[in-house]
């Protein structure tokens, strides 16, 4: 038999082998990351508990509840709205693994767009995972894509008209942070947004904090974006953060930009809604080679060059902006917002113990505040 006759069979066999191994890697992204909530946890729920039609779908995700013994307000902390912005997820995981609530209630969703964590942004060569060293070993976390997995929500419309009536590019139909306040019979992403709104209403949330990251060349960075309901809260937090050495810019949520958490949580549920942004080189456009090291260490020579040319909105030196620093900023932001809530609305105050202090995260490293793996 000539090579020409046998090669299609050999190539077909190779195709199946490649499909098997690559398929196994892709499917591994669907296994949830480990999380070990600390002793302060009072209930582990699912988002579908607030909107049952979500049960069994790729949009369902864990919700960790930390209820204090004394009465107070409820605060929602959301990470993983955009799964390629890891500081938000890791800050939420660090909170869930460390905090105890003395007064009021804290609800934490570390992987808000669970479907988005099951794939990577196409043509970006993003790593599937990154690791963080803890004293007891390395913890691995998925780096997902910005939007819902197209396997779970397809096809994208040419023009997406979101629940707020805003016209957007088709791909934004899978962006959780354009889908609020969601629709009970909408797409998977809209149903997830609807479920988060249902949680906010059912739990009487007074303050919602959505943790994000943005590219260093993007102007809304190291920022607190606030709904007008939370203007005083955001300004109070910003000033105390500045006094601690963390400069955050204040950005008002534009009323005509629909579908975003900081707009719709405030408009539809009347809560104080804020979004925190840190600077992440790994999903910026100017980066060099994408890698897990870039996600964790945040060092990139092209961003260094861009900073020298004055093209960035944050300082970027040889040390980069590591994940430790980005998570520390988020933790400092959450602490400052909780303090501001206590100042502005004492009856709705939420008192949380054991939030890792930002300077301690910077000196001891993030791993010191994550529980070791099994």
């Amino acid at each position, binding site marked *: 038999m000539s090579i020409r006759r046998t090669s299609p069979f050999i190539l077909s066999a190779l195709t199946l082998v490649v499909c098997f191994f690559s398929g196994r890697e892709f499917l591994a992204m669907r296994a949830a990351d480990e999380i070990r909530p600390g002793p302060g946890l009072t209930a582990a729920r699912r988002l579908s508990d607030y909107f049952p039609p979500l049960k069994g779908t790729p949009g369902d995700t864990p919700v960790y509840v930390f209820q204090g013994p004394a009465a107070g307000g409820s605060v929602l902390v959301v990470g993983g709205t955009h799964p390629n912005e890891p500081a938000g997820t890791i800050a939420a995981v660090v909170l869930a693994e460390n905090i105890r609530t003395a007064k009021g209630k804290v609800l934490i969703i570390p992987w808000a767009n669970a479907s988005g964590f099951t794939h990577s942004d196409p043509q970006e060569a993003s790593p599937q995972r990154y690791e963080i060293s803890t004293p007891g070993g390395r913890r691995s976390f998925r780096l997902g894509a910005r939007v819902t997995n197209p396997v779970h929500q397809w096809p994208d419309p040419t023009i997406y008209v979101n629940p707020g009536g805003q016209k957007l590019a088709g791909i934004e139909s899978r962006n959780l942070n354009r889908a609020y306040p969601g629709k009970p019979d909408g797409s998977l992403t809209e149903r997830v947004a609807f479920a988060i709104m249902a949680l906010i209403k059912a739990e009487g949330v007074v303050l919602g904090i959505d943790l994000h990251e943005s590219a260093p060349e993007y102007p809304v960075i190291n920022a607190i974006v606030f709904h007008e309901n939370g203007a*005083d809260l955001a*300004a109070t937090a910003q000033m105390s953060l*500045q006094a601690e050495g963390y*400069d955050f810019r*204040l950005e008002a949520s534009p*009323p005509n930009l629909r579908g975003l958490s900081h707009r719709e949580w405030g408009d539809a549920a009347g809560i104080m809604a804020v979004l925190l942004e840190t600077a992440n080189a790994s999903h910026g456009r100017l980066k060099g080679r994408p890698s897990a090291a870039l996600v964790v260490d945040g060092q990139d020579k092209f961003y260094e060059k861009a900073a020298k040319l004055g093209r960035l909105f944050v300082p970027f030196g040889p040390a980069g902006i590591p994940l430790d620093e980005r998570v520390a900023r988020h933790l400092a932001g959450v602490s400052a917002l909780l303090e501001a809530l206590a100042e502005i609305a004492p009856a709705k105050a939420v008192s949380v113990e054991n939030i890792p202090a930002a300077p301690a995260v910077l000196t001891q490293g993030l791993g010191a505040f994550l529980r070791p793996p099994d």
Partner: protein
Amino acid sequence: MKKTGVLVILAGLLAGVAAGGQAAPAVPPAFETPLLLTSAGQSADVSLAATLARRGGLPATLAKAAEGKDLAGYKTLVLVLGASMKGLGAAGLDTAKEKNRVRALLAAAKSLSMPVLCLHLGGEQRRGELTDEMIKEFLPSARMAIVVASGDKDGLFARICREKAIPLKVVEKTLDAVEPLKAAFGK
């Protein structure tokens, strides 16, 4: 003898500081409450001013895009300088409209003999071509200005205030502006 001399000098210094502290209230406050807070440039820094007023116990109303008719019932106009294209867009304004609004507002305040206090709270990040244009045009109308130091690295505020004899208070951090703000209102 030497020790006594040092003590005498120290005592003198302390007396001077104490005297200075006592002398301050003798100066009549430059402004009266209630105050109307507005922005020149629609940046979110106006929210910082509202929080500073709350912390200082000053009754204030925030009207980001206040007009002349809104001045009724107020005794001081606080103008927070800082331009944001995003803020202007969200408010449905453009640069020309915003400048015209502030011009008309300052003219109305002048006709009511209402003093203007200018604030710049966003630091270095809140400087730029558009903000600078507004600083140059509107700061001379102020009776007093309070700015965060990093926003005046180039000395623009210092120069205009010196030329127009406007008292300028420079603070390191935004939070530090509470005290000069209270002092300006005699609190």
